[in-house]
């Protein structure tokens, strides 16, 4: 079996073990310099993907990236699946907050409200975030999320690829007008309801990195890896059952 992990910073690990490696030095998450590259390498064994793969006893590929939008997650996962030679795959997807958009800037980038904090954000993208994200109602964002979920789930179902999915970020919501309840339409093993509370919602304060960094800490990532590993086992059993 080979695992592929896709998601946002909750899957990637963000500042997961920065303090352990670099003490009180401020995390250089956005800088993407040599220090950040060093951090990424040292962090790898402690990520959700590595921990889960160790529990399952298999290889893995981690295509998660901080700041990813849901559409970005869906397309990146499909693109990876289309190009891989790995067989016996299980796709592990942590869906992110709906209020992000994938846009073209010579390559695909992901815009969100967090981009507003970046003083270097070009004016045209600041206007885009304001008009196409901040002032839009929740329904628009949820539609983008559900579109991404449907897109990837159709793809996985059509190719009989196992998956474990969960909402990393995003608040619970009622089914959208004109669209069936997503609970009834998704495939694979879901650790959370597709329209229910997310991992972010369900965490207590002591499971986060710090009061100002609300990502999961190492103990919580280990716990989540355990949940995923158990779901992978169940997904494999279900597939064996459906073949018989």
């Amino acid at each position, binding site marked *: 079996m080979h695992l592929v992990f896709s998601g946002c910073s909750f899957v990637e690990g963000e500042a997961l073990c920065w303090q352990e490696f670099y003490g009180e030095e401020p995390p250089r998450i956005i800088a993407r310099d040599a220090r950040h590259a060093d951090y990424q390498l040292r962090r790898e064994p402690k990520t959700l993907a590595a921990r889960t793969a160790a529990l399952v006893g298999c290889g893995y590929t981690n295509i998660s990236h901080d700041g990813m939008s849901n*559409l970005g997650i869906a*397309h990146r996962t*499909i*693109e990876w699946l*289309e190009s891989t030679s790995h067989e016996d795959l299980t796709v592990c997807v942590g869906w992110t907050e709906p209020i992000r958009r*994938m*846009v*073209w800037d010579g*390559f*695909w980038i992901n815009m969100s409200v967090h981009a507003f904090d970046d003083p270097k954000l070009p004016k*045209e993208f600041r*206007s*885009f975030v*304001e*008009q*196409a994200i901040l*002032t*839009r*109602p929740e*329904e*628009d964002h949820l*539609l983008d999320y559900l*579109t991404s979920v*449907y*897109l990837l789930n*159709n*793809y996985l*179902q*059509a*190719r009989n690829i196992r998956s474990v999915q969960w909402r990393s970020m995003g608040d619970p919501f009622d089914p959208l*007008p*004109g*669209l*069936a309840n997503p609970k009834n*339409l998704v495939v694979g093993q879901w650790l959370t309801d597709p329209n229910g509370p997310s991992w972010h919602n369900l965490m207590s304060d002591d499971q986060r990195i710090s009061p100002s960094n609300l990502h999961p800490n190492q103990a919580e990532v280990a716990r989540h890896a355990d949940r995923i590993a158990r779901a992978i086992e169940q997904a494999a059993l279900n597939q064996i059952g459906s073949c018989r």
Partner: protein
Amino acid sequence: MHLLFVGCSWVAGDALAWDLLYPGETWRIGTSQYQQYCLDRRPYTLAHLTAGLVSATYTDLSRDGISNHSMALEAREFILKYPGDDLVVCVGWTDPARRRVWDHDRWIDLGLQYLDDPKLPRQWREYIRHSIVLRTDQDHLQDYLTACAILADLPVRLVQWRSVGTSFDPLGLPHVDAQGWISDPYGDSWHSRLTPSQRISPTNLHPNRLEVLAHADRIAARIPCI
């Protein structure tokens, strides 16, 4: 067999039979007379003609101004609720530069054509400017190809074509399997290929009745192959 047609005005028919049904009267969209016209034009529509050619029943969900995103989601809802296994979905993809958005209590579709409407509220004018006019071709094409992909993997037979849009380089964009397509998903659209004599008039560039019949024939020819 049951056919589901989804598409924009190119599938719905636009002024296709206005001259026959209301000779000498000015084409008026959005009026009560137009509502009646939409019912009266049914025998001339692409859905009706295709269904006649293959002796099938049909449902026509097409409507003026719809976005690709709305088409995919509305077709998806229909497909998932359809009880039989004899469904063929016929999709005429539209101009990629349209967006499905929530307007207080309903979904609407916005496109560049609404900028001509002096009654368009300021908020929508701003939205169209930032989300459509100022966005790149890749943003619009990615939206179109995502809509295609939503339907591509559903367990249903599809006949597809581009009604509106120009050819483009798919570099960096999602891949769409061209099986079941009348035209290349990345290539020229029905609109791009029409000659002036195949259009309703010099000012209304939609296909005329003869061309709609010819397209129904192309679709019907694909259906037994599926």
